[in-house]
């Protein structure tokens, strides 16, 4: 189905098709308290007005009903954005018989404390629905008190009130007003933060405020004072029931602390503890709010879709989003915890630990909300100063030294000091390295930025990034060759003494390593997002195994050349303490990377073999697919990788051979899978002993690294159980002379169960489960 969105382009919002003079703008509330702009001059010497209605009507009469007159730029999205005037389902201005535009709700009526709690808790639900991606028009802007504060637009704190021009205030209404002011100011900050970073409008979040100002002109200190006053009045006995008074107070505290959290997170040079403090406070206040929720009485009439009619939008009327309080509570709980945890990114140790922080943080379930994700982006990149204190060069050099160039003269910061001697070799090196950094910086930072997106977008973005990295690699190669000459680097034969001698090609090796990692993530995200059909899994796990094998081989090459280069340095001098540290760090990285590649490769190999067996036994059967061939689908599946020169995409014939393994029997495949699983499990055990330095995962990331590893390890164990069940069933039911086991699954009385991603031990490892069934209805089924 085409998307049912109604993307009204901003520039059309003011257009009116009516030939009547427009009513005064304040009637629409569009301009709030501001002076109405004068209408454009209709007549002047340069303008000759001509009434075309007669001609238009005449021309229109020659058309058949349904004939479409459009220019070439009228797109599908334009047609989806169109509405039919006076159709009540599309035209939000259309009034039913006897219906009035005005709400008829009296915002000045006194409220009991229970009702204020009820309204506030409903506002909490709407605030969260907005965070989750629903527009303000269907959430907070459906509330009559919010509307009363925002319209007409207030210019002073006194005007920011739903009860205006009336001396004195019902104290309960003052509490509600204070809450709303704190809420709206927070929404303003959240909206600005999100707009300032990379996110996808409508998909992640809707920033549209429909020409309403979220109190951006009202001084924050004044708003805080209103909240303080309301809290004081609660203590002075406006509400005699202390339970109710406490419940209201905790809701006002939530607003205060949320503003604190926002304010402190704006400056990354605040201490991590001080940035964390309000988030911790918020987590506690939320519990109090949750406990007192039952005290509230809901006031549903304080919320209405009718307000949508006053918003500057061509949107059809849409229902109020109903998020349950329990769910709202759950989402806020995650949000506050994520707000606290994301602060840890500021504790920088090295580039690889930073990348792992972002990777693991974004892999949390549920994924952090877009506000937190944009907060993370701002911590990382704001003003192009990484984490508020590091240059891009700093983390790039850290990365280059960790991955490919430990203790290398190329990264020696003293090279810069030769600026005054432009012909010195050191200055030449510094210069070339700087040019390379400038070339690669964007691609490198984009990796971090990409991982901050929603899971679907990460995969889609990476599909483009790998082409970018291929270009970085090619450009880096030119720099590498010049550097090899200028540093008189000795060539080396690798991997065999008989291999043609080559230079280290460190910079292009670095780029190639990123490309390989990104390609691996694309394939793994495919499993996580349930992109692949069950009969594709054998082939996709084989491809994952191929990619990790290639990465493993590449890391071995990097290590061999880096070690050779360090040996050359050692011939003339000892390594400095800093160089020693760099080399140790790189050695940790290579070991971890090789081990990670090995376990991924082996578990992928095992699963590939298992799926081949399931296919042979008829337990996973491809659908008929009369319009497609295996080769065509291979082209579609591998499209992102087809444009990549290195590693070259395997030909379809190679892939087919690997995904079917026609030369191996079922028994041989199961043996191969078993031994691959054994290797993987050994590797997981070794990685489970990694400390924070070895895993490049620190603090909370280290816990996530362990949990992730445990999930993979359990997947390997589960795969072993599947093999056991298969062996047992085959041993029992299939006569030993059917060597291939072809189509024998029906007699095994087994059925394959493929779990939905959230039910797997690890989302990237689709371990097939086997369940016993009466032999009649065996076959593959998906669990979602």
């Amino acid at each position, binding site marked *: 189905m085409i998307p049912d969105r109604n993307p009204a382009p901003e520039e059309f919002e003011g257009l009116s098709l009516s030939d009547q003079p427009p009513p005064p703008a304040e009637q629409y509330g569009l301009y709030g308290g501001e002076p109405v702009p004068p209408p454009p001059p209709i007549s002047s010497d340069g303008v000759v007005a001509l009434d075309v209605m007669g001609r238009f009507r005449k021309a229109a009469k020659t058309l058949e009903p349904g004939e479409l007159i459009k220019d070439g730029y009228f797109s*599908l999205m334009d047609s989806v954005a169109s509405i039919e005037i006076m159709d009540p389902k599309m035209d939000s201005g259309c009034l039913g018989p006897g219906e009035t535009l005005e709400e008829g709700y009296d915002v000045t009526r006194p409220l009991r404390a229970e009702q204020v709690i009820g309204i506030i808790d409903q506002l909490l639900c709407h605030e969260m629905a907005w965070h989750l991606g629903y527009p303000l028009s269907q959430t907070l802007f459906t509330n009559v008190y919010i509307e009363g504060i925002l319209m007409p637009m207030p210019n002073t704190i006194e005007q920011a009130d739903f009860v205006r021009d009336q001396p004195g205030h019902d104290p309960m209404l003052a509490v509600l007003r204070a809450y709303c002011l704190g809420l709206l100011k927070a929404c303003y900050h959240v909206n600005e933060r999100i707009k300032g970073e990379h996110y996808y409008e409508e998909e992640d979040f809707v920033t549209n405020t429909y020409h309403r100002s979220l109190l951006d002109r009202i001084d924050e200190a004044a708003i805080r004072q209103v909240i303080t006053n309301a809290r004081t009045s609660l203590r002075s006995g406006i509400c005699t029931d202390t339970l109710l008074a406490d419940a209201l107070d905790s809701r006002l505290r939530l607003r205060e602390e949320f503003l604190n959290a926002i304010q402190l997170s704006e400056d990354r040079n605040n201490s991590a503890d001080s940035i964390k403090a309000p988030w911790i406070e918020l987590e506690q206040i939320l519990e109090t709010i949750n406990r007192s929720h039952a005290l509230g009485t809901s006031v549903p009439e304080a919320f209405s879709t009718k307000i949508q009619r006053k918003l500057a939008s061509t949107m059809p009327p849409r229902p109020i989003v109903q998020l349950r309080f329990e769910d709202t509570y759950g989402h806020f709980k995650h949000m506050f915890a994520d707000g606290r945890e994301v602060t840890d990114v500021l504790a920088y140790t090295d580039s690889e630990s930073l990348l792992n922080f972002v990777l693991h943080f974004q892999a949390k379930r549920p994924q952090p909300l877009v506000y937190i994700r944009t907060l993370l982006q701002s911590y990382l990149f704001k003003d192009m100063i990484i984490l508020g204190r590091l240059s891009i060069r700093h983390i790039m050099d850290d990365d280059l030294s960790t991955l490919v160039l430990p203790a290398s003269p190329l990264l020696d910061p003293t090279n810069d000091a030769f600026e005054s001697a432009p012909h010195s070799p050191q200055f030449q090196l510094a210069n070339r390295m700087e040019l390379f950094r400038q070339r690669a910086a964007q691609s490198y930072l984009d990796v971090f930025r990409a991982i901050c997106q929603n899971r679907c977008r990460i995969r889609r973005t990476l599909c483009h990034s790998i082409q970018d990295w291929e270009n970085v690699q090619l450009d880096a190669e030119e720099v590498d060759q010049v550097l090899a000459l200028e540093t008189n680097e000795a060539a080396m034969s690798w991997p065999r003494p008989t291999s043609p001698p080559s230079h280290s090609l460190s910079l292009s090796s670095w780029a190639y390593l990123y490309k390989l990692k990104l390609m691996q993530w694309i394939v793994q995200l495919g499993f996580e997002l349930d992109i692949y059909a069950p009969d594709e899994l054998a082939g996709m796990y084989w491809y994952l195994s191929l990619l990790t094998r290639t990465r493993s081989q590449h890391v071995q090459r990097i290590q061999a050349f880096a070690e050779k280069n360090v040996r050359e340095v050692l011939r003339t001098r000892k390594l400095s303490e800093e160089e020693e540290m760099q080399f140790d760090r790189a050695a940790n990285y290579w070991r971890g990377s090789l*081990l990670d590649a090995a376990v991924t490769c082996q578990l992928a190999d095992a699963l590939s073999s298992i799926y081949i067996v399931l296919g042979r036994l008829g337990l996973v059967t491809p659908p008929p697919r009369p319009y497609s061939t295996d080769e065509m689908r291979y082209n579609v599946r591998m499209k992102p990788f087809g444009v990549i020169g290195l590693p070259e995409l395997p030909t379809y014939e190679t892939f087919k051979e690997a995904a079917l393994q026609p030369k191996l029997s079922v028994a041989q495949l199961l043996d191969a899978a078993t031994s691959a699983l054994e290797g993987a499990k050994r590797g997981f055990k070794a990685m489970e002993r990694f400390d924070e330095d070895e895993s490049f995962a620190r603090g909370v990331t280290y816990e996530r690294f362990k949990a992730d590893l445990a999930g993979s390890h359990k997947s390997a164990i589960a795969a072993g159980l599947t093999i056991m069940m298969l062996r047992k069933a085959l041993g029992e039911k299939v006569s030993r002379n059917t060597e291939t086991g072809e189509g024998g699954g029906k007699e095994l009385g087994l059925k394959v169960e493929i779990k939905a991603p959230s039910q797997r031990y690890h989302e990237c490892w689709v371990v097939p489960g086997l369940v016993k069934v009466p032999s009649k209805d065996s076959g593959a089924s998906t669990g979602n």
Partner: protein
Amino acid sequence: MAESGRLEKLPAELRYIQYEHGLESQYLPAIRALISKDLSEPYSIYVYRYFLYQWGHLCFMALDPTDSSLVGVIICKLETHASHSPMTLRGYIAMLAVSSAYRGHGVATALVKRAIDAMALRDADEIVLETEESNIPAMRLYERLGFLRSKKLHRYYLNGSSAYRLVLQLKPPEIERVVEPALGEAEVSEVVVAAS
């Protein structure tokens, strides 16, 4: 999808006809009614005319032969896809609906097949569509015909649900490869076996 009120057997062989502009007054109201049933928000008439006026030949209707009433409909378009290099002629299945009483008898599949045939005849390179991730019957239908999920689209619909893009490749794509980097010269060696 309403299970109740479903026909055990189709009353008779349904009639499948290609839409044409002359049928608008007879069938457009029924088409809109049938498709709107599953939508939270109706498409305006322009959306229907956008497709039907330009690509009526890619729209097919299933009719009950007894009274020629509309049982099912598929609406498509076929255009060059500009953001691609090389340019591809991309078919797009925009809407597919079958009256609930007639579901479970392959009407939708028959409609999709006619649309694919019509687009293939007009030289389409590929056919794409989106379907809600929770719409398992629709995905099964397309996947049985040869469509593949190519990407997942986060919160694609107004109700907040995500979608899958499904693709059916009809012609082999042309792939331009870039030059081979020097690191490609080394041969693939054995993977390091996990140390314990």
